[in-house]
């Protein structure tokens, strides 16, 4: 069992309950989609699995380890085996794509190799191969701020492909792409997972994509799991209940990071 969650809940610092009573078991090499209305807790669930958030209650086990019982350095080693694809990939605007991709392996590399990589990319072919799978090979030496939203998302996926983790978590990985590209990108992720026997969890707001690409689908609403079924056993009624009061199909969110105001004191 790759992932086990028992009675996991998360309450934010402001008292808002994001997730409660989550029980979940995921076996190795499973491919799962997480669907649900916006604000349901899909991102929070993925961040919990990425050890990017610590649960308030319950116990979590990832890749046969208890992340919050480990020492900080052991946890970093566990984290290197988990890849999280962000909806808005946090890549520094001035960084080149090749550096951003190769940064995926920082957890595995020695300090010396990582430092060397800042001056000359140590694995150009590896980065190129990861980008080529997402049809982005020509952007290898561009800067990240020259990519469009969809290209940036693909660069973020390429970084995780290059990282080569045993558990891939994807938070709305295709939200900024057109339907054809979204389908293609999800196939790439699924092929990677199937070929390497990797566990894949992706949250999606497009139900049809979830049904078409993933054998198992989890429906999340208001911080709880509504259903957890093989994708061919989900009835339209269950989907209607999941998205009740959400008749307006939410338009894909435009990813614009908040403008950063840098104030430097002088003298």
């Amino acid at each position, binding site marked *: 069992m790759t992932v086990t969650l028992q009675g996991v809940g998360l309450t934010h610092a402001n008292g808002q309950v994001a997730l409660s009573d989550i029980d979940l078991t995921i076996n190795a090499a499973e491919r799962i989609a997480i669907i649900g209305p916006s604000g349901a807790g899909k991102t929070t669930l993925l961040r919990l699995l990425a050890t990017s*958030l610590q649960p308030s209650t319950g116990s979590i086990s990832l890749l046969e380890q208890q992340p919050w019982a480990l020492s900080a350095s052991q946890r970093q080693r566990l*984290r290197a085996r*988990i890849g999280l694809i962000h909806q808005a990939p946090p890549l*520094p605007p*001035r960084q080149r794509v090749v550096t951003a991709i190769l940064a995926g392996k*920082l957890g*595995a590399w020695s300090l010396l190799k990582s430092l060397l990589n800042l001056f000359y990319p140590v694995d150009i072919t590896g980065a190129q191969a990861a980008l080529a799978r997402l049809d982005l090979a020509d952007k290898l030496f561009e800067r990240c701020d020259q990519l469009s939203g969809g290209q940036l998302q693909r660069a973020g996926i390429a970084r995780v492909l290059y990282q080569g983790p045993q558990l891939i978590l994807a938070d709305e990985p295709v939200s900024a792409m057109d339907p054809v590209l979204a389908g293609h990108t999800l196939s790439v992720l699924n092929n990677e997972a199937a070929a390497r026997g990797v566990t894949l969890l992706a949250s999606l707001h497009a139900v049809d994509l979830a049904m078409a690409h993933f054998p198992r689908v989890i429906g999340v609403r208001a911080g709880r799991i509504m259903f957890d079924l093989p994708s061919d056993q989900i009835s339209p009624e269950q989907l209607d209940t999941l998205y009740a009061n959400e008749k307006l199909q939410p338009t894909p969110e435009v990813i614009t*990071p908040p403008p950063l105001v840098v104030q*430097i*004191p002088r003298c």
Partner: protein
Amino acid sequence: MLKPALRDPAALPRLALALLAIIILWPGIKLSELDLGVLFDAENSKTMGSFLSGFWPPAHDSEFLHILLRATLETLAIATAGMALALLLAIPCGLLASRALSLSAAHRNGRLAWWSLALRWPVRGLLIVLRSVPEVVWALLFVRAVGLGPTAGVLAIAITYSGMLGKVYAEIFESVDPRPARALLVAGSPRLMAFAYGVLPNASAEMLSYTVYRWECAVRASVVMGFVGAGGLGQQIDLSLRMFAGGEVASMLLTFLLLVLLADQLSRLLRARLQ
């Protein structure tokens, strides 16, 4: 007349703030004994005039230019060596004082654990101590310890500027987007590398600009410290002033202008390279 409903609601508070500023400033002007009248007093104007008239023409005989070149190089060397030493201390202190690299903040939505906050205070305290004593005071101290000459200036700049640079670097690290570094930390990257790959690309332009500006300040500071015997252009200006050689002072002030201009251009060039 404007209708009352259309009046800017911010007008009254702004007027009140302006009045308040004047009321607060007035005692300050009184306390500092500022009296612009003395500038226009006939006697004083004449004294200043004769002092300034000695500035023209700037001295340019070859012997003096040789001394000037040497003093300029010495000033640049003091500023550069002082900055280099200051960076050695400022970068590690900036990293320690900044919360940008906290592992505990990465999984707590940016909030630090209490022990992580507590650890930062000694470093912040050290930086405060380093920068709170002006470099001239350090220079006076070191002139007594290591004797007259540039060494005292280098040490004084290194100490004061490491405090300033460390503080501002820490603030720059915290002011850039924290998400790239946090994402790297959560992907298992060591902290130093999360800094190099996540923070540095966003922070480098600001850091560079501030460092070059500080280097320019160090050039100026080394001149001031020359007056207390720490070598460089300042010591020459002091000597020339004592000998009432206005022309020499003028030449040195012009050199000084050139140095600041040079620092400005250097900053512009480096920033353009980074863009």
